[in-house]
């Protein structure tokens, strides 16, 4: 197996681990960290392909994704803090007032 496919499979594995974390974890913070893992899987894939094809576009894209991820942290943590203020908990099981 050449390096490109190896790292592609590695990034796919990272993505799946992140997705499983989102599905299985109950704390909003840990779900959030799993989303970051999924984002980094995509980053790894972009870097790998950029290296494979000799195109810098992929590397530049990763910088943008990292910036987006930082903005996502700001928005996500703000919402988690709001939830924590009203419920004193960050477990997603507590997010059950809206249903029907």
């Amino acid at each position, binding site marked *: 197996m050449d390096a490109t496919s190896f790292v592609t499979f590695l990034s796919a594995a990272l993505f799946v681990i992140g997705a499983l974390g989102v599905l299985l974890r109950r704390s909003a913070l840990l779900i959030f960290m799993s989303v970051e893992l999924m984002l980094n899987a995509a980053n790894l894939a972009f870097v790998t392909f*950029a290296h494979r094809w000799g195109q810098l*576009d992929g590397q530049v894209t990763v910088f943008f994704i990292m910036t987006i991820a930082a903005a996502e942290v700001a928005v996500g943590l703000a*919402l988690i803090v709001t939830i924590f203020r009203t419920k004193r908990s960050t477990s997603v099981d507590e997010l059950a007032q809206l249903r029907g």
Partner: protein
Amino acid sequence: MGGFTEVNLAEFLGILPEILVLLWATLLLALDLFLPGGIPRRSMSLLSAGGLLIVALVTVLMRPAEPQVILGGMVRNDLFLTVFRLIFLLAAALTCLVSVDFRPLRAGSEYYVLVMFAAVAMSLMVGADNILMLYLATESASFTLYLLAGVQRGDRLSAEAGLKYFVFGAVTSTTMLFGLSLFFGLSGGQLSYKAIASALSQPELRLPFTLAALLVLVGFAFKTSAVPFQFWAPDVYQGAPSPVAGFISTASKAAGFGILLRFFFNAMPPGVSEASLSWVWLMQPIAILTMTVGSLLAVVQSNVKRMLAYSSVAQAGYVFVGVTAMALGALNRAEALAAVIFYLATYMLTNIVAFAVLGVVEQRVGGSDFQHFNGLARRAPYLALGMAASMLSLLGAPPMVGFAAKVIIFREAIGVDLVPLVAIGIVNVLISVAYYLNVVRAMYVERAETESPLFVPSTLGSVVMIVAVGLVVLTFASEPFWGLALEAARAFLRS
């Protein structure tokens, strides 16, 4: 991209509407910060809406005659983008106007600025001609909407809606991003839609391309609240402030359809290679499931806000009927796309009115269940009339414009022999009679405990009445708008 192309300053004129809205929003935010006491909320709402409407005028005046790819291949500026810009600007302006009297929304001027930022991001979503731009614009739009959903400070339901929207949104958009990274790899390191399309034909890449298309479709399905990614919609709409729910259910949904059409028809055009079949074949099942699940679940709701959420899922299903007709038919593709655009535009007007009235009932009567609408025709006749017009238009009853929009979509679908799909659509319209007319019945037939007149804020009341009258007038004066939609569709297909 693929080799740096020099950017001409004149190219920035192509995104002038976005630049103007961004400047106006930033200016208002700064003024609010530095003026003693800040800008009063009523002026803030009028200034935001006025600015958005002026930019809408600029958008019309500056519409491009020919499709042009600008800013190093980032944005495709054509009439299709112009029409979507108008939808977003109008939706944002109406949302600003109906929000000012929504008392539970104790937000400051940042609320209006966020609505304007969202409109900018949505325009760029539809304008994107490049994977990177697509992702950046989608995320910018999502972030503002997460904040808007959770903007009602101290309100548990609003905070919960914001976080739920955020978690589902972050997961689906990251899934989309992973799919986009695969597209980048499979197309030999290219980011533009066109480069992806030219790499499609390699038969050994059919399976990876299919996988990548499915991952990207997850993100689009979330934005358009298509089944099976519709489950967030009722919770978010119910918890979010009503004007925001109206904005998310119309503008954000239209943006979702905009990127879906742009990406799939430019990067994976139907009929070019076997890999395109992956998404083409999925459109019909998605249309059937989204219509059916939406209307069946709307019937059993006792809360009007949740009913409207499921109804908006069903409405997305009807739009998918048009998308299916467009993907499967080769001859009447422009007409089918024009039908989709026309439907999205009329649905935007209708649903924003519905959520505006719902917001008044929520705060003045004390809840958003069907029983809270009892006797509204006596307590606030004009408001009830606006709500009835909106419900009949969503149902697709003549003489409302919703009727024309549905007829056109179904006509285009029959044109490509999708008779079973249209039959399922008509059955769903018949089911929807139950829940749309239930609101009308509560307002006009049921009696409320009290008959005292309901206070209706003047701005909101006039906006509701103007749009409600527009819903009837548009039916008889639809010709210029249909012509514009058709021109936009032709510009889209010329790429």
